[in-house]
């Protein structure tokens, strides 16, 4: 009777161990899969974010470059510049500094251009001052050499755009 019980217990144990052996691989696969997923997902999301951030930021950079190139070919006055800005960036306006004879257009704080003009024109009727004779455009920020912000003394700043 005793040996009968022992053999039954051993058979049950055998089945149990056989099951353990069979499941063993599955456990390792699960653990490895989990680790792989965690690591690669982090890598994927991190990489994707970098690509997206750069892509989105350079999209703006591209428009500012295109605008600066076109401005060099077509712009003569600060009004022309304002029109060009509106074409490329309908929601952002540049601003004139009559004192410095410059117009600064900032698409973002990193990407801006500063156009320098030769003359200040004044409309006698409404005292509206504008700039004319485009001399040069500073594209330092686009080349990665952001120049110091243009100093604009208080009261000298003049928003353009109403005349459009």
């Amino acid at each position: 009777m005793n040996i009968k019980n022992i053999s039954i217990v051993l058979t049950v144990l055998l089945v149990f161990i056989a099951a353990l052996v069979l499941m063993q691989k599955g456990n390792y696969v699960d653990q490895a899969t989990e680790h792989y997923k965690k690591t690669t997902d982090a890598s994927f999301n991190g990489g994707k974010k970098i690509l997206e951030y750069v892509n989105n930021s350079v999209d703006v950079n591209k428009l500012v470059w295109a605008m600066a190139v076109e401005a060099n070919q077509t712009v003569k006055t600060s009004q022309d510049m304002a029109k060009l800005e509106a074409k490329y960036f309908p929601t952002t306006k540049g601003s004139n500094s009559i004192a410095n004879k410059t117009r600064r257009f900032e698409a973002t704080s990193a990407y801006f251009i500063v156009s320098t003009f030769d003359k200040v024109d004044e409309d006698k009727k409404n005292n509206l001052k504008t700039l004319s004779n485009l001399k040069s455009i500073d594209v330092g920020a686009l080349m990665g050499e952001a120049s110091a912000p243009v100093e604009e003394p208080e009261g000298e700043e003049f928003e353009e755009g109403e005349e459009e």
Partner: protein
Amino acid sequence: MNMKKFKILAIVDGVLIVALVVLMFALKGQYNDQAQSSVKEQVGAYKATVNAALQDQWKSMDQYGMAWKLIYATVTGPKTEAAFDANVKKIFEDTDARFKQVSYMYTAASIPAQVQNDIAAVGLAEQFLLKNEGGVKEIACGKNCVAKFTFVKGKLKDSDYKALIEYKFAENFSIDAPKEFKFE
């Protein structure tokens, strides 16, 4: 069943149990090694893919930056073939300015300096001037982007940088999601 048969069964069970336990321990080591090497290999391969995509973008941004500088210099300066060639050379050889420009773009995109350094380890783009035949010059303006300048008798006849103006960054730089893990 008589006692003799139970005895044989118990012995067979015992032998099999010992064999299975031995097998289990042997497999344990094997599976462990397999899991570690599989994960290491596949994670490594995926990270290399991601890295390659980021480095690809970095080099393309370098070409992109050089292209704009060249276009700007061409538009604002003398429109001669000699001036163009000199600009291409000057822009391409000024690696400090190139690095500064790309790095500025990445900083503007809020990419931390440490991450930038890791990507920048790949170096700058190896190519800029792609073709220079009979007055026709092609320059790389990024991945899958070519700008073309045509000179006749040393004078600029046509500049075509439409590809750069219409360049879609999102279409050119992306990373595929990781594949399913394979326990090999």
